[in-house]
């Protein structure tokens, strides 16, 4: 709430030679190795990079703050003439919330569940002595109306759990604006949201930042998102700046090889191959209806689709659409109330405990979080070796030889990795171990549940390529559960679109991705951010003109 009239080219934040160190293993390591940037009033800077690039660390350093276990070791952070690295705690406290605000990735974790939204909104205002509670309430309602929240006069009086994830993230953006700060730091604010919700939140953020001429730092790993949001983009890697330029120039003409490789990630397409001669479908899930308890409403309604040999079927939908529940029915963790699962012409018992070892062997699973999918207390040798001895009775030399083969198939050096523990591997390597464990069982079908969504794009692409190659070599069928349509485009043969427990559309990939679409598929497809900076504006305008979007954020 600065009283002077901001001019558009006045420098608000100047970061130079910023170095940040983190303490681990008994010594200090450099996390950020000398980064400079400037930010003018009303400008949005996108910080982009893979995990571990130091994006978030730089983001909070712009508030003069270092995470626990970290320290700012060199450089300067000047905010509107105030040197934050040497400012006292009290000075920084005056700034935070009032002139610099922060929006975190998980709104659900950042709101206090015990207080109403509007009270949390007004707290900062009252604390900083900017206005009274009543003024803050009135301002909150006005802001809620401005960002098109439903029932703006009433929604603030709800508790955080009473609104949807997208609404909560928008309420958080409104809260960040409560004191009309000069600078807002957005740290992956839409990463946890579904695509259809994401676009609304992005539009809100962009809108509001423009209206109040607020400067922003937008941190994300998603290139298409940053293309919509930022005026300038800065690419980071291993705590160092790779390059920085205007958004359009960065998208059209990246200078560095690393940036080019990031830009090229989405180009992967699976190997096209002739379909296997049609016989009985490998898996047929027949009219399945299921619920988690007899008294509850069904979470799956009349699900019916087939998976053929050497085919990849992508199950697409937002959170809560029943994708993962479908996998649970196939694996036998959840017994359907109606319908049946037929594998290779034989009906599978509904409960996995009644399935034979050979039946269990046929369907293997790869999970989203490789961290929790492999036992941290077992060596890689034991993790991959267990299916070998359990299903195939392989022991001794034969097992050792097979282990080495499997490691080579997943492109990890057997000598180096077989005797390690999972904690000694990176996220992508752990996911490869999960793949090795699945193929060790020599299954016919592998269920991949969001296997790449926790990985950086370059690493995720490596995993997709590996899965594709293994499919060619081993004639595997994949059931690929994902919410990411870019992944679907890359790997699927057929697509099943789910919404609220029902299949709304299914068919070959080309059919699904070309019009005419089912209404929901259309919404889903058009919500996937594209690398074109004008994309969001265009989509929003199209939707507003159709005016069918009023309730999409709910």
């Amino acid at each position: 709430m600065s009283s002077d009239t901001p001019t558009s080219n006045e420098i608000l934040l100047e970061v130079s030679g910023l170095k940040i160190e983190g303490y681990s293993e008994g010594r200090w390591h450099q996390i950020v190795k000398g980064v400079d940037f400037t930010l003018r009033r009303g400008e949005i800077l996108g910080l982009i990079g893979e995990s571990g690039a130091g994006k978030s660390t730089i983001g909070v350093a712009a508030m003069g703050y270092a995470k626990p276990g970290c320290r700012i070791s060199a450089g300067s952070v000047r905010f509107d003439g105030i040197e934050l690295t040497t400012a006292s705690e009290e000075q920084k406290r005056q700034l935070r919330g009032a002139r610099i605000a922060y929006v975190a990735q998980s709104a659900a974790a950042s709101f206090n569940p015990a207080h109403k939204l509007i009270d949390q909104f007004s707290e900062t205002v009252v604390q900083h002595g900017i206005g009274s509670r009543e003024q803050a309430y009135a301002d909150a309602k006005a802001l809620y109306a401005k960002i098109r929240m439903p029932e703006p006069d009433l929604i603030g009086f709800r508790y955080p759990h009473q609104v949807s994830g997208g609404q909560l993230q928008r309420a958080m953006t409104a809260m960040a604006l409560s004191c009309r700060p000069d600078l807002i730091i957005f740290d992956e604010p839409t990463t946890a949201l579904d695509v259809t919700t994401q676009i609304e939140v992005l539009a809100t953020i962009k809108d509001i930042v423009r209206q109040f001429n607020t400067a922003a730092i937008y941190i994300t790993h998603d290139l298409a998102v940053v293309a919509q949001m930022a005026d300038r983009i800065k690419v980071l890697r291993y705590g160092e700046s790779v390059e920085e330029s205007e958004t359009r120039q960065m998208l059209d003409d990246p200078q560095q090889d690393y940036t080019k490789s990031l830009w090229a990630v989405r180009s992967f397409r699976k190997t096209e191959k002739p379909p296997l001669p049609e016989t009985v479908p490998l898996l047929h899930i027949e009219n399945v209806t299921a619920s988690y308890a007899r008294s509850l409403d069904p979470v799956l309604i009349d699900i019916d689709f087939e998976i053929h040999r050497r085919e990849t079927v992508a199950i697409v939908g937002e959170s809560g659409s029943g994708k993962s529940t479908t996998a649970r029915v196939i694996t036998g963790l959840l017994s359907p109330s109606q319908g049946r699962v037929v594998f290779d012409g034989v009906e599978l018992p509904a409960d996995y405990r009644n399935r034979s070892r050979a039946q269990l062997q046929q369907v293997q699973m790869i999970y989203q979080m490789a961290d929790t999918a492999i036992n941290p207390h077992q060596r890689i040798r034991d993790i991959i070796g267990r299916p070998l001895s359990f299903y195939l009775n392989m022991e001794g030399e034969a097992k050792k030889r097979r282990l080495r083969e499997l490691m080579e198939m997943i492109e990890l050096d057997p000598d180096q990795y077989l005797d390690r523990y999972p904690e000694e591997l990176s996220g992508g390597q752990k996911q490869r171990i999960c793949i090795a464990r699945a193929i060790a069982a020599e299954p016919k079908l592998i269920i991949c549940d969001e296997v790449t969504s926790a990985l950086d794009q370059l690493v995720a692409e490596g995993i997709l390529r590996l899965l594709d190659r293994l499919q060619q070599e081993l004639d595997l069928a994949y059931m690929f559960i994902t919410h990411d349509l870019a992944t679907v485009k890359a790997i699927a043969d057929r697509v099943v679109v789910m919404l609220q427990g029902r299949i709304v559309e299914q068919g070959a990939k080309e059919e699904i991705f070309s019009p005419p679409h089912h209404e929901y598929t259309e919404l889903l497809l058009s919500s996937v951010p594209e690398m074109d900076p004008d994309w969001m504006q265009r989509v929003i305008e199209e939707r507003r003109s159709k005016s069918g979007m009023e309730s999409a954020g709910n």
Partner: protein
Amino acid sequence: MTTPAPPLENLPNVADTLQITRAQRILRGLWTAPLSAKLGLLIILVYVFVALFAPWIAPFGESEIVGKKYLPWGEEYFLGTDNLGRDMLTRLVYGARNTVGIALVTTVYAFVLGGTLGIIAAVLGGWIDQLLSRMVDVLMAIPALIFAMLLLSIFGTSVLSLILIIGLLDATRIFRITRAVSLNVVVMDFVEAARLRGEKLAWITLREILPSISAPLAAEFGIRFCFVFLTISALSFLGLGIQPPTADWGSMVRDTADLITFEDYTPLIPAAAIALLTIGVNFVVDWFLHQTSGLKDEL
């Protein structure tokens, strides 16, 4: 399902520094341990040494009457004699073997019983979990010391019944903590993966879950050991624990308690032996908990 957390990617250097073996890590952990933990370890080692080599350390036989009653501290009888004329130092040394030995056996038994049932309750869930948990609730509803005294009066005060009864009562607490920590592991994907592989209960409990809960259980073992040890000493002091002529610190306090009125501090020595071991074990447990809780990573 659609909340990808940013993973720790591109950190090969961290993986390389982790290439040291577990043994090296433990040794380094010991070296950098705080003073209190080192002291605690030293105390435990001295007790273990004394307990193992009691017959060689003690100057006399365990229940041998060597002189007059209540002799003062001196050269021949270093800590004097007790109410029957037995050498105090000798009985103190043998007491280490008896009290600590019985407490250890009891704790191990309580852990095997409570731990196994706790994991099984967590893995199987449903009515088995309900049945076991409610049985434990019933046992825990009765004050432990009074219940132990009641049972000991019914079944007699042999060492075996002492171990079985105190072990059973302590197993209830261990059941609860094991079940609670196991429940956090049971929901992990790797347990689901093992189930879907078709693994039997024994594999899931022993190979998948037990390694993940061993750290909190080990810490609990230390604390439980202290409680068992104190319970046995208390029962012995009350005459229901380890029976004479077996040397035991609890009953030694009782036997020589009269001396305290004559400003003779002999009865405090077995009491101090109990206190010192309890403190030592707690020092080590504190350090261990601090290590495994991950607090060490934050400054």
